[in-house]
């Protein structure tokens, strides 16, 4: 089944972005780009999301928040780093309070560079992440099959 690719719900988190990329992410939702035609919904809830879209780099203020949001998302999940700050820290890389890109903290699957990243490239990045999402689902299924004999009765609880 490939339902996952037809209905990716994303969660957008503004790490320490300057809002440039955030505006471009929101532009994807406007009638001009209308990502809902691919079934993409911008949820505000990590528990409903499949794709974690992060803009801006990691700093000491948001380190815990990013970690927490990532942990709350149910498997399978992918992370898309939007904008050059999220991919590597960008011009803020050398700042005393910036640890660098999002991949310093959580595994990132797709990098969308740009300052600010254009809506077209953001959509492109998210569509690219769908393939990875599908791979992760198959991996998750296999893991479940291997664990089946001694699986905990609680299912997905943790």
């Amino acid at each position: 089944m490939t339902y996952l690719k037809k209905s990716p719900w994303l969660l957008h988190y503004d790490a320490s972005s300057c809002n440039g990329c955030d505006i471009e992410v929101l532009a994807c939702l406007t009638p001009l780009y209308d990502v809902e035609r691919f079934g993409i919904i911008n949820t505000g809830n990590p528990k409903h999301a499949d794709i974690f879209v992060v803009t801006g780099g990691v700093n000491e203020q948001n380190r815990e928040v990013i970690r927490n949001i990532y942990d709350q998302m149910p498997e399978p999940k992918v992370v898309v780093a939007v904008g050059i700050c999220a991919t590597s820290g960008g011009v803020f890389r050398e700042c005393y309070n910036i640890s660098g890109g999002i991949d310093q903290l959580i595994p990132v699957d797709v990098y969308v560079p740009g300052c600010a990243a254009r809506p077209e490239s953001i959509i492109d990045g998210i569509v690219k992440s769908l393939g990875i999402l599908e791979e992760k689902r198959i991996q998750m299924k296999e893991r479940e099959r291997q664990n089946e004999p001694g699986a905990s009765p609680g299912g997905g609880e943790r």
Partner: protein
Amino acid sequence: MISIVNAILFLLLAPIIGGLVTGIDRKITARMQGRVGPPILQPFYDVGKLFEKENLVVTASQNFYILSYIVFIIVSGALFFAGGDLLLVIFAFTLAHIFLVLGAYASNSPYSFVGAERELIQIIAYEPMIILSAVGMYMVTKSFFVGDIAASGMPLFLYLPGVFIGFLMVFTIKLRKSPFDLSTSHHAHQELVKGVTTEFTGPNLAKIEIAHWYEDVFLLGFIYLFFAFDPVIAIVAIIIAYLLEILIDNTFSRVKWQLTLKSAWIVAGMMGLVNLAVLYYLAGVLI
């Protein structure tokens, strides 16, 4: 009198009809907003996807509450389409929503709590009007059984215009459409995170969605009952009522819970009770 066949047909067809109606709803909504919109089958993709996801729960009792929610929604809908007692249908319908509220309360999340409180307020807001509808139908047809009401051949809509308008108001609340989508909404994905559904993931969320499809079909069936004397008029009425809901959804902003409660009760009182009072005093003349 109770038709098992109808109940089974409801069980099998309602999710398909409900999902399609939701898909068409999303498409029309998108067109009203100048967007292309998702494919008609999008709700099915969404539910299919949710079943593929991990079921992350805060407490295991959430699973039980959501299962109870969908079971009681199906029971109430099946009983309705089988021609059962309308009061029992309404009772099971309310119980189902209480399970949803309990599920939200079980999760110990502030967002979920706010959603649960609001869902309770919505139940308080719509419940009188739904019961008034049943009472109105009883006053005209002298039966609480859906089968008898549908078979009576009486133009219920002409006897109960006020009750019908009141029911349309409740219909807006029940479909989670815009002026009254307090507890959870199809559009406001970020507001108060997502109300009652905040703490439900994957399969549990899918069950809530499927229960909502069953609920939609049940409510459309309720509208049918007002026009049961002529199936063609009834279906046209259902389509017009639903399109009206979509229009209202897209043209109104969300109201506060106080206004929801007040307006629902004022409409129930003004339209419903006055209608019933007129029916009561003119019973000898009209029926």
